């Protein structure tokens, strides 16, 4: 069987389960790409190959022995390096944690393992998950596999780049302001931020406990659906996780969009948007219309409140987490990390509490107006063509670079404050050959609907199957 690394996660898992391929085959196919391309992309920052090969052989033996197999049996994975595995390295992308080995294992890692997957590497990321670009002064910048000088998106930079470059079939990311959806968009893969509280955060490095979310980056929406089915659900070790029942998200992906109402915002999300991005979104809407959906365009309410309140929650919550290091060793951070955290210490408690106390009422008012007109919202994930790493380098760039930097996440941040589920799927390429992402957002706990729309789109398009030219003829 050839092209194993090009398979989607669901196809790879099904191939192992059916005996069409072995887990060892999958692992070696991924490693072939990793060895050829990672020196230029820098998505993987540590590996445990021997343990992974052992896990693959155990998985293959289970297939031969006709044991009961999990949904992800025998699938090799690598994750953003902030998901704790007891005794294993978890750098959080920072010099301050370059030797950190936690004593606990994240619930999401345990759930993936219980479904038969295993982990073989740690992935590059923004320091402490705090940039939307992929810059990292300790482990080196992560480069976009489609065009190396361009950003990967962040903060799950290695997650997006590694899945795009066929180093793995899926990677966990985390999303506090867009950190799953941005690298998914920039790297041409699918990435799902679930509803706030949908997935346990136990054992995941904290950044902002009100806005942090755990979710997958993978090739397809169907892949994301299978992973969400495995990782979602209440966890006693994370009391903030919801008790909402977990359906089979994959089973609900029927591609039938008749009666679906799509809303396209006329304010905020297209402000300053680049023409190739708008054209890609409009073309995507035509695909969804052909599937039976209808489109209406209207102004979203309360966006000033969402921006003002959402803008301070993450900064206020990150500040105390990092206070000791900001006092004792501030130069260990990249300038763009410490520089962005610094104002968080001046945010008054009354502002922060106002932002939190208004979150519920704002969501209710937003949902009442918006979801009476539409079932999902569609926007570009990133409203401009991708910038380069140099153009967004706050540490070395001129004053004003921070505005180019922050513009990257302008379309994703609102859904973190609102807590809504949102996916990014590839929908085209910009003139520099970098992917463009389509963001689809839904109601709370409406991941099934969001995934259904994304899956229907991918049933009629091939953007998610494109492979970066850097891979060349590597299998």
């Amino acid at each position, binding site marked *: 069987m050839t092209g194993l690394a090009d398979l989607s996660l669901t196809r790879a898992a099904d191939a192992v389960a059916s005996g069409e391929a072995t887990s060892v085959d999958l692992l070696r196919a991924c490693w072939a790409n990793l060895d050829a391309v990672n020196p230029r992309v820098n998505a993987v920052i540590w590996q445990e190959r021997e343990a992974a090969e052992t896990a693959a052989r155990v998985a293959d033996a289970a297939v031969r022995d006709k044991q009961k197999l999990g949904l992800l049996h025998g699938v090799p994975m690598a994750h953003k390096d902030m998901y704790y595995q007891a005794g294993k390295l978890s750098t959080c992308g920072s010099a301050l944690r370059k030797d950190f080995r936690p004593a606990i294992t994240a619930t999401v890692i345990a759930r993936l393992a219980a479904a038969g997957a295993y982990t073989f590497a740690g992935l590059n990321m923004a320091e402490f998950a705090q940039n939307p670009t992929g810059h990292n002064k300790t482990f080196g910048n992560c480069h976009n596999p489609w065009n190396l000088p361009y950003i990967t998106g962040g903060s799950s930079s290695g997650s997006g780049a590694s899945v795009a470059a066929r180093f793995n079939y899926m990677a966990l990311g985390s999303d506090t302001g867009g950190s799953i959806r941005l690298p998914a968009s920039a790297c041409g893969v699918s990435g799902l931020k679930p509803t706030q509280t949908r997935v346990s955060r136990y054992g995941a490095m904290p950044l902002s406990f009100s806005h942090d979310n755990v979710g997958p980056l993978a090739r397809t929406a169907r892949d994301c659906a299978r992973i969400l089915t495995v990782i979602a659900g209440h966890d006693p070790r994370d009391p903030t996780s*919801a008790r909402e029942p977990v359906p089979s998200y994959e089973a609900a992906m029927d591609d039938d969009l008749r009666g679906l109402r799509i809303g396209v915002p006329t304010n905020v999300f297209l402000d300053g948007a680049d023409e190739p991005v708008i054209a890609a979104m409009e073309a995507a809407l035509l695909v969804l219309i052909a599937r039976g959906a209808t489109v209406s365009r209207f102004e979203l309410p309360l966006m000033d409140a969402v921006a003002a309140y959402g803008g301070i929650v993450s900064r206020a919550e990150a*500040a105390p987490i990092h*206070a000791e290091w900001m006092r004792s060793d501030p130069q260990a951070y990249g300038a763009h990390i*410490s520089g962005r955290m*610094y104002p968080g210490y*001046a945010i008054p408690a009354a502002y922060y509490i106002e932002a939190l106390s208004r*979150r519920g009422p704002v969501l209710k008012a937003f949902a009442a107006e918006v979801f009476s007109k539409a079932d999902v919202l569609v926007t570009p994930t990133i409203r401009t063509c991708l910038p380069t790493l140099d153009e967004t380098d706050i540490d070395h760039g001129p*004053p004003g670079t921070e505005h180019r930097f922050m513009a990257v996440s302008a379309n994703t941040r609102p859904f973190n404050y609102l807590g809504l589920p949102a996916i990014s799927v590839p929908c085209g390429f910009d003139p520099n050959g970098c992917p463009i992402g389509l963001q689809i957002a839904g109601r709370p706990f409406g991941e099934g609907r969001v995934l259904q729309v994304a899956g229907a789109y991918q049933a009629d398009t091939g953007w998610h199957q494109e492979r970066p030219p850097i891979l060349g003829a590597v299998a």
Partner: protein
Amino acid sequence: MDAFETLVEATISRWHGIEPPNDPARRLASELAGTIEAFEALRGTLAFEDEPSSFEAALQATKEGAR
């Protein structure tokens, strides 16, 4: 450095013992003036809340399939 920036730096130093680590920190701290303006613009939209606010309850009230 204007009076606002001086005040912000002094506040952070006094309350947290943290000094501006670099120029981007100073520039971004000066942009807190924009945060204040954004909050000022929302004044008059706040109602007195008789019930405790719960974001989790709002998620449930507005979820897929909720009526």
